[in-house]
């Protein structure tokens, strides 16, 4: 059984890529075994038409690897559900991250809770805690929005929260850690406090 699974993995390499004005990066990612992932990395200099990096490297799953050519460096890394490649050259830099597998966003299952909108007035934040910007996210220049689905109880406390739209390098967890410390004036329906579910967006800006 295990052999069959290994063969299945080996048969489905992922061909990934990105191109800037000056470079074309191609990464073929193949899961060789439970302990090893192989990468074929090729970089073409689009100004000269020459292949400036062509290398096959291997690493453990989720382990970062780096390959260096004469004038270009490619770093492959993992974070949560994403795989990333960063190409750095003297006149160029590009970075791409890819979702590794289809994701179904989590949703809060809270029978009796109301969705904010219509006759349900939203909760109002009375205590906010800014999310931390993880050093890895800052170092990798990750920016964008994390969207959470939040359940606030009729006592104004955050009872549950899940990431609906995440970002790599721990930004989703950072937003979750933050929202759990917030306090609200509860949502109301016909003037009465109710448990309520709503979406909340955290914007992370580092560059």
């Amino acid at each position, binding site marked *: 059984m295990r052999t069959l699974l290994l063969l299945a993995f080996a048969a489905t390499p992922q061909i990934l890529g990105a191109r800037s*004005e000056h470079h074309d990066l191609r990464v073929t990612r193949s899961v060789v075994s439970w302990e090893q992932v192989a990468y074929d990395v090729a970089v073409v200099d689009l100004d000269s038409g020459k292949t400036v990096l062509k290398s096959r490297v291997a690493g453990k799953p989720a382990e970062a690897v780096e390959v260096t050519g004469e004038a270009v460096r490619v770093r492959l890394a993992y974070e949560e559900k994403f795989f990333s490649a960063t190409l750095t050259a003297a006149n160029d830099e590009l*970075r*791409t991250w*890819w979702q590794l597998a289809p994701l179904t966003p989590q949703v809060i299952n809270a029978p009796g809770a109301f969705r904010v909108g219509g006759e349900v007035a939203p909760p109002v934040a009375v205590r906010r805690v800014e999310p931390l910007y993880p050093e890895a996210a800052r170092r990798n220049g990750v*920016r964008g929005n994390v969207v959470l689905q939040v359940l606030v109880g009729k006592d104004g406390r955050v009872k549950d929260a899940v990431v609906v739209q995440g970002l790599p390098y721990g930004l989703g967890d950072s937003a979750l850690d933050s929202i759990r410390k917030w306090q609200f004036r509860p949502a109301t329906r016909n003037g009465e406090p109710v448990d309520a579910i709503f979406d909340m967006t955290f914007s992370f800006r580092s*560059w």
Partner: protein
Amino acid sequence: MRTLPLLLLFAAVPTVAATLGARSAHHELRLERNAVSAEQVAYDVTVVNLDSGKTVLKAHLTGKPGEAVEATGGEKDRTVRVRLAYSAHFFSATVNVLDGKTIADEFRTWWQLEARAAGR
């Protein structure tokens, strides 16, 4: 204040289209970015489904320099969304492919806008 460097940057960019792109295992994004003037940038965006070979999004967009723009397309029950955005040193494109509530595919690329000193 923050938009001033971006405006100056675009003012200095000749009106030459830059061809950019990215591909996941299932989709390919092709992007032409053309600084038409100091006040306008045009984008030609194409997304191809690599499994079927079909073009699932094709759009011509315009925006102000530094302004985010978005295009949406799709095939059957799938929605394909491309968002183009800027930060101080980078231009980015995010491709989302939604199959109902499932994110079937997602990738994002950042391109450096101009040569910069390391660490900036």
